[in-house]
């Protein structure tokens, strides 16, 4: 158990530091800290152009959604980066518990996604006057963490696909695009076509964003329990599916000798 925890925490942290060339401040700040604020501003102004919703509505949607870029690219690179540094075979040759190995990589990604999302809120507060009630901030923080968890689960799934396909950035980009359109980030769900609305229910972010908007409007966290549980369930479902795919692709890769073929 001690080894499991060591691989999970220490291994995950080292992998995060080692595999992310962009973790340097010169790259991290413009990409992951300024990006969410720029996104929040752009869509808030687009919302004003369309006379659609208030600035706060867009701040919440886009700030929470910005967790997805850190989570999807983070998990993608945490797995695919091993191939680029030609250490994938070595990592998979170890007897380390696979759950500790791969899930441990998700923890720093999850925390990073939450920080990224939080900067979107701070940007919205500084530049657009976003002022949720102080009592709602712990609830919002929890929902950001939850959305980051669900996105990390999806990132595990897309990262696993990256074990089979070459272009992880493309898969991550496409997943982000789907989340941006479908999850009620910038278009109210009731304004989307019915099939998109249905699809949104099965995606990460949809429920966390809806809950965050209600909490920011003054609702208690208890009143959004259903959304919280659904988002949590989706996060676990994507995480488990991603982990299962990782194991399957690992076994397939060993069988066909294609682990490094990318």
């Amino acid at each position, binding site marked *: 158990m001690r080894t499991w925890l060591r691989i999970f925490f220490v291994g995950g942290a080292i992998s995060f530091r080692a595999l992310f060339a962009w973790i340097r401040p010169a*790259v991290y700040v413009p990409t992951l800290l300024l990006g969410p604020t720029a996104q929040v501003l752009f869509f808030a102004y687009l919302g004003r152009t369309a006379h659609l919703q208030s600035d706060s509505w867009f701040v919440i949607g886009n700030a929470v959604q910005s967790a997805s870029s850190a989570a999807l690219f983070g998990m993608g690179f945490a797995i695919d980066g091993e191939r680029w540094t030609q250490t994938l075979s070595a990592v998979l040759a170890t007897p380390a518990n696979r759950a500790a190995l791969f899930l441990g990589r998700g923890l720093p990604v999850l925390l990073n996604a939450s920080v990224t999302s939080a900067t979107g809120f701070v940007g919205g507060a500084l530049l657009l006057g976003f002022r949720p009630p102080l009592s709602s901030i712990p609830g919002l923080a929890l929902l950001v963490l939850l959305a980051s968890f669900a996105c990390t689960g999806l990132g595990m799934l897309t990262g696993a696909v990256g074990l089979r396909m070459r272009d992880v950035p493309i898969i991550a980009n496409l997943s982000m695009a789907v989340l941006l359109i479908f999850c009620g980030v910038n278009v109210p769900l009731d*304004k989307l076509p019915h099939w998109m609305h249905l699809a949104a229910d099965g995606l990460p972010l949809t429920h966390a964003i809806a809950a965050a908007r209600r909490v920011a409007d003054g609702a208690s966290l208890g009143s959004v329990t259903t959304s919280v549980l659904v988002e949590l369930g989706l996060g676990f479902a994507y995480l488990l599916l991603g982990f299962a795919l990782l194991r399957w692709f690992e076994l397939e890769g060993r069988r066909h000798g294609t682990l490094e073929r990318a």
Partner: protein
Amino acid sequence: MRHVRVFWTGFVLHFKNLSASPFMMMTAAIWPLVYATLAFLMFRATGQAPSLLYAALGAAVMGIWSTTATSAGGAIQQQRWYGILELLVGAPSPLILVLAPITVAIAAIGVYSIATTLLWGRLLFGVPVHIAHPLLFAVSIPAAVISIGMLGLVLASALVLYRAASAFSQALEYPIWLITGMLIPLSLLPVWVHPLAWALAPTWGMRAVRHAALGGDVGAPLLVCAGLTIAYGIIAVTLLQHFERLARDRATLSLT
């Protein structure tokens, strides 16, 4: 004439090379569809927003800037990674003639975004594509592309010594979309932003494209766009000469 040949050969080579890159094609062809879809859905939801063709054109030109922001800022860094930056600097052709075709080719593959966005809007959202001045539209598109490419060249030149140029350049994606009026009218932005927008050629390129398609004065924005494009060329040459000398002095040209 030799300079034109160097530019053209470089442009064709890089255009073909970039067109074969799945990542660049996704940036050029898929992301503009995402933004166009969002804009269509948002504009259609209220009925108080500008027309859907306005949104389609804006999303299309956003795609041109996307490809530029994603890749042009790091164009020099890319040559550094390939290990050929020293060779390029040492070649008899001026460095500007080696670099400009790269950034203009990067912007030019954004032309795919215009085709896919207009087609997407027509097929999925029934956006009527009636171009008010087809000839001026055909002139405005390359003007906008070249102006955005030259802005990318200024970025690439200014970031020669900055190793994280690509990340910085990508961070400018949303701000340039925001302040150049691609989807959001300038009148909605704070007044202090306006002079900044006027100094950016894409503002005028976008205006020319939009007026050519929807009706309005095309000549004035086209002329301002051309003037700013030339100014960007001069700025890029000056910056490149300065930073090239600095990099040679410090022997840091090939350091990644």
